[in-house]
């Protein structure tokens, strides 16, 4: 989706038309027609801003250079100086800065559709594992119960990782929502301070639409996470029931501390034990020798010492020789 946001002119005198011709840049899907000019020409050395107008101009310059954090700091300082003449324009540009910050965050975040699909896939895999456990419980065959137990654990691991991914995505989306909410407030404030600023009102509407879309995505992820959590709980209960039915000597290692998947088997699978099949792809068989070579390749150097200088003490360089 492409929408146009207009950046307000910061120039207090002329040059608007010229600036509008040259300063036209794009931030993600948004075209920013920047008609921003400053009081100083680019060739002059940048002096430290002092007045609210200076801070405003510096902030607008940083916005043009896409240095968003600095732009935000400058514009906020300009606002905090409480100059009624500068405030509406500073607030307007601050809205742009915050929208761009949110967009940047969103770009780096995992796609909500991918994360949701991952969670749904983990849930369906969990449902299959659940079904297998129930069948094994009914058959009361030890082998099938152990197999179902291992599959269940694998499914729970998938659910855990899917939930972690959703949680991470939700955190980022929450940050984006915060930025865009603040951006909405900025545009609305700019329109409130300057009733003639129709661009601010238009931008607020656009941001509103984006926020609505973002909230929809967040809700979808939350629903997927709830479904995954529910499946994880059901699976946990079934696994616990199954543990009670499997004799201790046939129990897979790590089963008594079945709380979390990673701590269950710190030394990996024991001989004779088998991990449940992965959700997709095939397991690669590997010999113990190959495994040993791989592990040696990753050995840490904690026990290696740095070489000493040798038996003889080193001689210092001649201090009287010429320096170059």
């Amino acid at each position, binding site marked *: 989706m492409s929408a146009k946001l207009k950046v307000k002119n910061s120039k207090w005198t002329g040059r608007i038309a010229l600036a509008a011709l040259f300063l036209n840049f794009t931030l993600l899907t948004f075209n920013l027609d920047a008609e921003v000019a400053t009081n100083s020409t680019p060739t002059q050395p940048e002096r430290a801003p002092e007045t609210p107008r200076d801070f405003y101009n510096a902030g607008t310059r940083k916005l043009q250079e896409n240095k968003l954090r600095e732009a935000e700091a400058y514009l*906020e300082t300009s*606002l*905090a100086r*409480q100059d*009624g003449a500068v*405030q509406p324009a500073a*607030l307007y540009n601050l809205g742009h800065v915050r929208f761009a910050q949110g967009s940047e965050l969103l770009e780096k975040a995992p796609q909500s559709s991918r994360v949701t699909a991952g969670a749904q896939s983990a849930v369906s895999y969990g449902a299959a594992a659940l079904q297998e456990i129930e069948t094994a419980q009914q058959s009361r065959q030890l082998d099938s119960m152990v197999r179902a137990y291992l599959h269940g654990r694998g499914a729970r691991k998938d659910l855990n990782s899917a939930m972690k991914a959703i949680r991470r995505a939700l955190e980022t989306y929450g940050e984006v929502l915060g930025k865009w909410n*603040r951006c*909405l*407030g*900025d545009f*609305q*404030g700019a329109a*409130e*301070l300057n009733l003639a600023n129709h661009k601010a009102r238009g931008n607020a509407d656009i941001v509103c639409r984006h926020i609505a879309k973002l909230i929809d995505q967040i809700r979808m992820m939350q629903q997927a996470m709830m479904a995954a959590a529910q499946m994880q709980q059901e699976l946990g209960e079934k696994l616990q029931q199954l543990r009670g039915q499997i004799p201790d000597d046939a129990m897979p290692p790590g089963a008594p501390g079945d709380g979390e998947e990673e701590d269950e088997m710190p030394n990996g699978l024991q001989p004779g034990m088998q991990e449940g099949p992965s959700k997709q792809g095939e397991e690669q068989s590997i010999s113990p020798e190959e495994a040993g070579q791989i592990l040696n390749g990753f050995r840490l150097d904690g026990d290696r010492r740095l070489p000493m200088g040798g038996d003889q003490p080193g001689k210092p360089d001649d201090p009287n020789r010429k320096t170059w």
Partner: protein
Amino acid sequence: MKACSHISQRDPFVVALQAAMLLLVAQIGFSAGGDFHAGLNAYRSGDCPRAAEVWSKHSQLQPASGTFINLGLAEWHLGRRGPAVLAWERALWVDPFNADARENLRFARKAAQLEAPTLTWFEAASLWLPINAWALVAGISLWAAVAFVTLPRILRWRRANWQQALAAAGFAIFLLCLPSLYGINTRSRLGIVLEKETELRLTPTRSAQTMMLLPAGQPARWERARGEYLLIRTGYGQGWIERSQLGLVCPK
């Protein structure tokens, strides 16, 4: 003669009007006094909301330090720190020598970890006398000085040194009063944040960015107004709050 006859033969309408006004004034005074005691009774019986309501009305009719102190106590018992501190500050505004108000303020600020307003030297000087006393002293000293300069000439008195000395003293007292009068003027901009967790806004807009939350009872100095918002300066910084969230020590 006409004037005399007019005085001696008063218009019955005027007399009735004057009598009605006297009755009204007496009624107000009586009802105000009655209100004060009603508030006292309510406070003693533990009905603090009623006491606060009665004393609040009473203080608007007859601002007095005692009423403000009682109002502050009722508000404090109700857990409304902002209005309590405001009431005691108003008590000090009316009577700067009131030790009870000063003590209550000290206790409240210590208990609620609140700042006291920072006063300039001329504001501190304005606390040496009640507000009306400063106005009275300044007025008397000025007019006395003017009188001692002009009256001997008008009445053709013989010029004497004591007249000059008194005129100089009058002018000096008047000039000494000026910083305090200015201090009273600037002190009238002091206010107290009434509600707890009052948002200090960056801009005077509905959806403004909140810079910090101010505690109830925090002193602030209002600088200017815009619409429904006041620009205030506190010990934490400058920002905007809604008009209803700040109670001025000297209400307009």
